[in-house]
């Protein structure tokens, strides 16, 4: 199959405008004849559902939480980028485009990324009109900050709760359409499969999480806005329920999965404190604007620290190694996430980690407090410092914070074309669930931008192109394909319930997470990945013979919900390993130890790997088939990323 990205011809800056003109339209009176299913109510899903309903389509929106307002997007802290250039500091659509392509280590499509930068400005207007209370300056205009290594101030924020405020904005728009009768909400409902009729996505099968009822929903198009799959690592900064099930089931029905191994490890998270740990907490990256990252200069000092013989404040200036400032004088503590994370790993691997487990580095505000005063630092980061204190019991105004990298975001996802359609006609993927815009590494404050761009400003145009050329006939849910899919879903659940083995679901999830973190995490090798593959296969076999899933299907059943999700993570894990293994280069978050520069930086191989990997599922127990979408760069020159 030739993967056609459908990027329009012509100059970069005209592509989207031209495309919007060329796509087919569904006339206003006909829109009500089309039904659209939106799975997920995060930024991507809520904005898409609301916007499509406003246009006149009939929308059904699904989420597994008890309310659409609780989607994982709610947890985003730092901010959202937009090329408004309100600060007059040299920003532009082109600069945001360029930064995003470069930040992604040249593994994203120019056309998509340019469009993202272009519509970013509309997002801010939209959110303000909804009543999103962004931070403002005393003159009453919007405030910006520099974020995640950007050299301009283009990040808009609402205290440390930007994701919450953006999501509540989208949720309010969604709620308005529920009141108008154009959206029907299905909370506490999990999508279990896509239903294909005549080669097109025509609906989904769901499980009602309260009653266990397996139900079908029919539509003319299905949008998966189901978020990322970072929880394959068990420990991540994602919400507990985040999962890959919707995307994975679609993959098994024919949607190609792209760059699954491109995972972002965020450098500033609270370190693991023990085996009981259920998730990791992110400390916003904005802290790196003022905090200085360091470890002791020698292993001996670090050992004393770990044994509690000395404290951080006892260590003299000359005995500290501000390793990011030392290695990257021009970017210093603001190097991109992958670079910051990898360097934290290096210094800890050398034995210079600063907590009991040896897996932590300091993020120190001493100098910033001396320079600006405690009040200024408190105004900027007060709520983050409080959160840190709440979780660790330490006071960051007095002792440096301890941080360590953790899994945070997945750049990989379902392959989509310029219209956000997957390889299954009528099936779309938006937000973190698709692979499209961040290449091998996402810049800070760009996921919120992408989710809302997809939902508010891309899909409302592109979906019409598909629907206009498809008949408005409805397919009833007693169609044999729906019945068949329902039966497959029920059978799988019954199978999980019938194993009655000896190990809990979490046992398997934790084991999988450890394999992924050890061998498919921050640094990867051929040897490690090969080992991981065998281990995952083994674990999967054990899961299907020895897991103990309690209770029955006909009730609220956490154990069954988890087992169902973990069964998919086990399959995804194997594909991630395959993907990491085949890509014999390092790029962005994908770091293969065999491929590095003499200075230890990621070494790309543009000649052989400047493509999107798109994997096709061939059947149970079979190796997946690799397809390649070549990446064509007409506007930017591929260079070795340098932050020195």
């Amino acid at each position, binding site marked *: 199959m030739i993967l056609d990205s459908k990027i329009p011809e012509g100059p970069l800056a005209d592509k989207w405008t031209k495309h919007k003109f060329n796509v087919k339209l569904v006339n206003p009176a006909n829109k009500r004849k089309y039904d659209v299913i939106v799975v997920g109510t995060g930024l991507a899903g809520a904005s898409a559902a609301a916007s499509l309903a406003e246009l006149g389509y009939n929308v059904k929106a699904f989420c597994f939480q008890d309310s659409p307002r609780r989607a994982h997007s709610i947890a985003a802290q730092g901010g959202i980028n937009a090329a408004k250039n309100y600060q007059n500091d040299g920003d532009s659509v082109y600069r945001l485009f360029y930064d995003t392509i470069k930040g992604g280590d040249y593994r994203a499509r120019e056309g998509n990324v340019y469009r993202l930068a272009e519509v970013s400005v509309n997002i801010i207007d939209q959110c303000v009109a909804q009543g999103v209370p962004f931070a403002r300056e005393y003159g009453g205009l919007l405030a910006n900050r520099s974020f995640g290594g950007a050299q301009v101030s283009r990040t808009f924020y609402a205290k440390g709760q930007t994701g919450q405020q953006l999501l509540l904005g989208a949720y309010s728009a969604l709620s308005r359409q529920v009141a108008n009768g154009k959206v029907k909400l299905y909370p506490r409902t999990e999508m279990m499969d896509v239903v294909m009729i005549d080669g097109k996505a025509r609906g989904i099968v769901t499980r009602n999480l309260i009653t266990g009822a397996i139900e079908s929903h029919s539509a003319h198009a299905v949008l998966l806005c189901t978020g990322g799959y970072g929880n394959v690592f068990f420990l991540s900064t994602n919400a507990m329920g985040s999962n890959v099930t919707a995307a994975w089931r679609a993959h098994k029905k024919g949607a190609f999965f792209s760059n699954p191994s491109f995972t972002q490890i965020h450098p500033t998270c609270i370190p693991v404190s023990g085996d009981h740990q*259920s998730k990791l907490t992110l400390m916003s990256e904005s802290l790196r604007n003022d905090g200085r990252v360091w470890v002791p200069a020698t292993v001996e000092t670090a050992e004393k620290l770990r044994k509690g013989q000395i404290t951080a404040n006892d260590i003299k200036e000359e005995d500290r190694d501000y390793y990011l400032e030392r290695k990257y004088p021009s970017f210093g503590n603001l190097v991109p996430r992958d670079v910051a994370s990898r360097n934290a790993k290096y210094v800890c691997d050398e034995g210079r980690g600063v907590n009991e487990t040896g897996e932590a580095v300091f993020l120190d505000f001493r100098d910033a407090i001396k320079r600006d005063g405690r009040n200024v630092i408190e105004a900027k980061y007060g709520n983050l410092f409080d959160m840190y204190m709440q979780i660790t019991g330490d006071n960051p105004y007095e002792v440096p914070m301890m941080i360590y990298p953790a899994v945070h975001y997945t750049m990989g996802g379902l392959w989509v074309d310029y219209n956000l359609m997957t390889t299954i006609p009528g099936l779309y993927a938006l937000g973190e669930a698709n692979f499209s815009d961040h290449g091998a590494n996402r810049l800070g404050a760009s996921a919120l931008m992408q989710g809302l761009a997809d939902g508010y400003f891309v899909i409302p145009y592109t979906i019409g192109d598909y629907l206009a050329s498809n008949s408005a006939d409805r397919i009833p849910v007693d169609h044999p394909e729906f019945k068949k899919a329902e039966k497959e879903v029920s059978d799988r659940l019954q199978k999980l319930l019938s194993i009655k083995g000896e190990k809990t679901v979490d046992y398997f999830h934790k084991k999988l997470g450890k394999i992924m973190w050890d061998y498919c995490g921050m640094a990867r090798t051929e040897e490690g990945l090969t080992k991981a593959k065998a281990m995952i296969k083994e674990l999967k076999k054990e899961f299907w013979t020895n897991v103990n899933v309690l209770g029955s299907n006909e009730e*609220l059943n956490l154990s069954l919900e988890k087992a169902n999700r973990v069964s998919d993570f086990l399959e995804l894990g194997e594909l991630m390993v395959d993907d990491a293994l085949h890509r014999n280069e390092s790029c962005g978050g994908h770091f293969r130890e065999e491929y590095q520069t003499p200075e230890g930086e990621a070494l790309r191989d543009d000649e052989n790997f400047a493509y999107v990997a798109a994997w096709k599922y061939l059947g149970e127990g079979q190796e997946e088939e690799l397809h390649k979408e070549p990446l064509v760069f007409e506007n930017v020159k591929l260079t070795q990323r340098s932050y020195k």
Partner: protein
Amino acid sequence: MNLTLKIWRQKNNADKGDFKEYKISDISKDMSFLEMLDVLNENLSEKGEDPVHFDHDCREGICGMCSLYIDGKPHGPQQTTTCQLHMRSFSDGDVITIEPWRAKPFPVMKDLVVDRSAFDRIIQAGGYVSVNTGGVPDANEIPIPKSIADLAMDAAQCIGCGACVAACKNASAMLFTSAKVSQLALLPQGQVERKIRAEKMVAQMDAEGFGACTNTGACEAECPKGISITNIARMNREYFSAVVSSDTL
């Protein structure tokens, strides 16, 4: 730490429900309250007993999904969410009682899980600015004084957890509703629908069966996000000005 947990167990909405006692040992002070329950559930699962069902997702104090009435207080002894409550707030040998939110508009679905969709319906009644996607003015076209934007942000921080309702002897949803009404009444974007919004949201709140507000302040004291009771006063002003000069003709 070793603890005794008295937990409300209820099979489903129709079941009567009852307390059950569990002993749990080796709990570290660094665990969060929900991680302590994870340990209990892992123990129960290993024994083949049905785990205790409770709602949670972000575990960062922001999604509003976790709940629990712990020793007679919503979200327990500290003014945080249950997921941000840590076991260092408890001592060895403690007996901890854990119940679901108790309020008629929040029916119990299983164990500690309740249905809070009434909150969604209150927002659907008017908790928005009626603008469609596209065609809106530039974001900097209307300057908003920082003090006003900050006040609106304070109100907008509500996470919709329902602790205010659980804390109130009348099960009033005034704090929750007033937070949204205030946020939008403060901002220029919310002016056009200011009156009708207050009327409709208050009407929905009543229709859902939430009780009246008698100004005891219990909600504010238990709100994990520090939503101020002054929002209730503001909503009352909005509401009364709306009923005397309604925009609905």
